[in-house]
């Protein structure tokens, strides 16, 4: 196993105990949404997946920060770039696994129960945007500062994402004003292979740019 793989696997190994917490929290939310009459909400599963992803990255960064293990890693025959690559690899694997899981569920359930393929792609894209913003900040400033800064960034993003459909709805959108729904419908009706390829290319590009920025930041970061 090479060094990148070893560190990436470590990110999962140190979180084995947290899987129990993820399952409990997920079940809690499923129960909460079901009791609240939102069981058929298409956004439930993506939100839970987003929660798992966010917790995973946070926990990996937190463990390194809390235990100061980045210092020990820096004393080993390792390039700092390797540590960055490994974090992107482990997170990337988790994004793909979660997206496949969501895609499988959406394919198995009747239409509208868990969201369409297009919705899964949109969510996959949102995950990548989120990680691509979060990770460079984390590698530059460390976990504690990154969490606080990202909180504001994501809040802003959500407000922006929420505002876009409303603003679009005021223009030439459908009568109910839900432009996002029309975008999703449009994507659903388009050539799936083309869309998947397009999304994959854009997200991969975004991810690689983010990784390059993280490498630059982490090389310059003072660990001691």
């Amino acid at each position, binding site marked *: 196993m090479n060094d990148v793989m*070893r560190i990436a696997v470590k990110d999962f190994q140190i979180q084995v105990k947290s899987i129990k917490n993820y399952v409990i929290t997920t079940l809690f939310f499923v129960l909460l949404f079901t009791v609240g009459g939102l069981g058929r909400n298409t956004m439930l599963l993506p939100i839970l997946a987003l929660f798992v992803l966010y917790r995973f990255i946070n926990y990996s960064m937190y*463990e390194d920060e809390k235990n*100061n*293990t980045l210092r*020990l890693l820096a004393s080993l025959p390792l*390039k700092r770039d390797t540590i960055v690559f490994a974090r992107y690899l482990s997170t990337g694997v988790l994004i793909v696994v979660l997206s496949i899981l969501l895609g499988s569920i959406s394919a198995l359930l009747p239409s509208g129960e868990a969201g369409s393929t297009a919705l899964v792609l949109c969510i996959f894209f949102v995950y990548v945007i989120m990680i691509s913003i979060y990770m460079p900040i984390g590698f530059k400033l460390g976990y504690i500062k990154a969490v606080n800064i990202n909180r504001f960034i994501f809040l802003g993003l959500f407000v922006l994402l929420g505002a876009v459909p409303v603003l679009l709805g005021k223009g030439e959108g459908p009568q109910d004003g839900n432009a996002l729904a029309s975008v999703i419908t449009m994507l659903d009706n388009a050539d799936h292979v083309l869309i998947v390829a397009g999304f994959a290319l854009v997200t991969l590009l975004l991810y690689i740019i983010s990784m390059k920025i993280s490498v630059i930041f982490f090389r310059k970061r003072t660990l001691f």
Partner: protein
Amino acid sequence: MSMVISINGLCKKYEKFSLKDVSFQAPKGYIMGFIGRNGAGKSTVIKCLMDMIPFESGKIELFGLDSRSFANENKKRIGYVGEDQYFYESMTAGWSLEFFGRFFSDWDNDYGYSLLKRFDIDPSKKVSELSKGMKVKLALAIALGHRPELLILDEPTSGLDPVIRNEILELLAETVQDENCSVFFSSHITTDIEKIADYVTVIDDGRIILSDEKDSIISKWKMFKVENSCRGEELLGRLIGVKKGEFGFSGITDKPDSFIKELNRRCPGARYKMENITLDDLLVRIAKESDTI
């Protein structure tokens, strides 16, 4: 004699502290103690050695190779133990040994586990359940598991009780003897250095004060206690870390014959005592001297 560490004119600046023209060499196959009080610059020098922090000027060579250009190549041949031990607390000692150890291409897993056994560490125990002394031993097992040519230890015994400290020093001396590797060992606990070091380098306020064989330092440097009637600027100027008391004054020098000659010339029949010094005396007097400058 070939050198494993060679530092020339090392300068590193912080806002409130700097390393000033640090130069010394550590010979291959010996234990060099690196002593200085807290904040003297020991850890900063070691971090520069390990390419953990950048430095402004100077040259550091490890095994004859530049420390920055060949950082990874050098690190493969080094075992490093820092002052604080950083592990994933929720993982076991065995997992930590393998995870960190396998980054070294020459890692010997069986040997690593045999070291854990020798250090009396249960591999299935979580790191969070280990005492500070045990964590140091775990770090030593990781550092030694790839049979390094050079062991760099940054105050590993700091904050440990004397029993554990002694145990670690014995383990270290034995291992070094068996494995034939060189050791660079920093500490402000001079008795630890006195027990195991062959060479000693003293640093104070970012400057190297002296670097020599331990026995040579101890035999060369002497403590003088002289009655006050002989006190004069010329004599005081020949001593380092002078303490003045009600009945006399004391200080150390590495030129005892010259001091005695001068004392007899200026103060014939003077009553004085010349004593051997310990590294502790040396460090205390050097620290006192730099505080008065």
